[in-house]
């Protein structure tokens, strides 16, 4: 029992922070009207790949570093903290899917390229109403003589436009299964959505008789495991973003003056910041607990991940909104980062199920009903 981060974890976090602060800039998305096309996804990816981060959770046998969810949280947190635009998250989700669900051959085909920064991935699971519940209706897999083909549409696919490979959830005879799909084939069309969070590429993907290859794990084996990690990853970004928003706002409240005193001297501001600190402390604790539980394959992992997603994303929305208020009108402009944090917070809160959905799951799990 020891609730503190080890020295190694702190060193990893610090080195990630130093790198991100030096190498990744949001300058181009802070130009009014910018879209994700201005976010330098490809340039940032090249730098991140050079750090070896795409291989963080990939086994050493496939050229990765085989690190745990706690280690991942240190690095992913820094990207969340800085909103670093890159296809890291989509690639991570795809990596996890192939790690847990792919055959040895599929893993050997894809993961070494990911670890080397040569291939990017995305996970296509949500329907057009945002749900990730099985079996899904909008994409269908059909087996023909020449193998499997996918037809239909998947929505809210993070980093699809950057991806070389997609892992796609599609329906086959009323069951959901996962397929590995070459994203570069003509039968796959990717349309970037006019997504409000311009630091992230979110897309619709259409399939028309696209060649696909099923992963070996079935839905019941793959999805719960993958879902917990996805929820955790969004919580990591959100907890780190909450802390960053608190820091920015704290600094501003010390500098900005009104009526002859720093605005932080007024209790409405002061107490708002104290509340944000409470949110940030709690978010960080919930996230670390989930990191630990998933790293250890602890039985509390699913509850911990659902709690972390529900709590951290709500906290992030609340803190980011508060920060706009505390900055005043300048915080409402496109040139400031406040709106980017607020948009990321809102996006993270909705993707893969809102807080209510996961709170309901928490109650189900702790009152011992089916998860």
């Amino acid at each position, binding site marked *: *029992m*020891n*609730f*503190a*981060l*080890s020295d190694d*974890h702190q060193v990893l976090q610090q080195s990630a922070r130093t790198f991100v602060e030096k190498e990744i800039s949001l300058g181009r998305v802070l130009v009014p009207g910018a879209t994700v096309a201005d976010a330098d996804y490809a340039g940032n990816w090249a730098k991140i790949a050079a750090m070896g981060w795409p291989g963080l959770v990939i086994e050493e046998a496939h050229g990765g570093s085989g690190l745990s969810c*706690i280690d991942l949280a240190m690095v992913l947190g820094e990207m969340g903290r800085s909103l670093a635009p890159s296809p890291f998250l989509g690639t991570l989700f795809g990596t996890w899917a192939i790690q847990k669900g792919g055959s040895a051959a599929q893993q050997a085909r894809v993961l070494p390229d990911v670890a080397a920064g040569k291939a990017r991935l995305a996970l296509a699971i949500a329907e057009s109403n945002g749900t990730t519940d099985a079996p899904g209706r909008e994409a269908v897999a059909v087996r023909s003589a020449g193998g499997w083909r996918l037809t239909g549409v998947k929505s809210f696919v993070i980093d699809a436009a950057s991806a070389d490979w997609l892992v796609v959830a599609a329906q086959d005879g009323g069951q959901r299964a996962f397929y590995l799909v070459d994203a570069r084939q003509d039968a796959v069309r990717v349309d970037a959505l006019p997504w409000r969070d311009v630091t992230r590429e979110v897309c619709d993907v259409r399939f028309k008789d696209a060649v696909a290859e099923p992963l070996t794990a079935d839905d019941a084996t793959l999805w719960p495991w993958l879902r917990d990690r996805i929820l955790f990853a969004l919580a990591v970004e959100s907890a780190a973003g909450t802390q960053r928003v608190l820091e920015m706002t*704290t600094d501003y*409240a*010390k500098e900005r003056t009104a009526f002859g*005193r*720093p605005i*932080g*001297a007024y*209790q409405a*501001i*002061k*107490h708002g*910041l*104290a*509340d944000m*600190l*409470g949110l940030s*402390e*709690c978010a960080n*604790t*919930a996230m*670390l*607990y989930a*990191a*630990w*539980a998933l790293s*250890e394959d*602890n039985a509390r992992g699913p509850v911990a991940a659902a*709690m972390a997603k*529900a*709590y951290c994303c709500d906290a992030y929305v609340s803190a980011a909104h508060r920060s706009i208020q505390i900055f005043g009108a300048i915080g409402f402009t496109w040139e400031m980062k406040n709106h980017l944090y607020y948009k990321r917070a809102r996006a993270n809160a909705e993707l893969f199920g809102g807080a*209510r959905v996961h*709170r*309901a799951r*928490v*109650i189900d799990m*702790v*009152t011992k009903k089916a998860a």
Partner: protein
Amino acid sequence: MDFELPGEDHPKRQAVRSWFEANPHPSGADLARAGYVVPHWPRPWGLAADPELQLIIDEEMKRAGVTAPRNPVAINNCAQSLLTHGSEAQRQKFLPSALSGESVWCMLFSEPSGGSDLGALRTTARREGDHYVVKGHKIWTSLAHEAKVGVLVARTQPDLPKHQGLSQFLVDMDSPGVSVRPIIDMSGHENEYNEVFLDEVRVPADRLLGKEGEGWALSMIQLQTERVALSKPGAIWGSGPSARDLVEGLAETGALADAALRDEAAEIYVEGEILRLLAYRALSDRMNARTPGPEGAIRKMLAAPHGQRVLDLAKRAQGARGLIAGEQPFPTQLSGDGPFDDWDYAFWFSPAVTLGVGTQEILKNVVAERVLGMPRELDPTAREPWSETRRKGG
């Protein structure tokens, strides 16, 4: 980083369990001598226990059906100051009976003129030979009606600025000139707190705790020690129902079928689990013998309103029946035997948890100022001699 709590087979558990098997009905003095009352203190009073051992002792005590001595002012707040600022004679005289619970303590801090602005207090202690003579009026003093010892903050140097002229004393509550009058709180409970009148009370000079002028610093440490000690997940300063109890109760009555209530219950549950983890982190800090810092104020700032939410949702789930005095929300009652293990009483008491031991507003000031570095509140009386402020009517 490791969130695993000590398991059934933890090597430290066996010794503790054996002790409780050999001593199935220990007195408070037995527990104190074994170091189980303040295990995190250094020997001989405690066991210099790390957080794991502290948790194990808590669990084994519960398992054995043994209740720890109840003397919160001494055990949670003030007695620790005797280790750091007291004389050896004071430790020998006061600690054994405090830790065994035989001698209940109370905190003579707040006054009718104000609790938040503690530094402005008016009770005086003037030196006369080998005694101090104390004159003043304290209020909201929990436990004063049964206390043998009062930890008093009084003004020894009225001509210094308000925070500098204060000193602390360990006062015998049966001294001539001390009178205690109960105050009935809104729950109807007669024994929650009291007024204490101090009329020319003669306190021997060797009852001064620390040095003259250290009263403010000691009081702040003691209040923050309390903030650490109290911020466990129970709804009333760590005691009483927790969010886990709430969800169990709501599941039992079927109230969770209501989607809106269920979501609220889930939100409170999640918050409760997080606060539990934060409390463990506080235990770790205490193990590292760190003086409790303002982080404790963060936890209390979160825990107090959380507790109110736990009790509020249980009460609302009762509907109109919740207004019937003594009516419990759930068929199964809490297993503890403390006063706050009664859901109805705990609810009607709960407005107090954002008042006592520093109001929510003061806590937020402390958190914003000490942790986030926001500018301090203006206090036009902070620098002038206190006697000057008083003369002007402050």
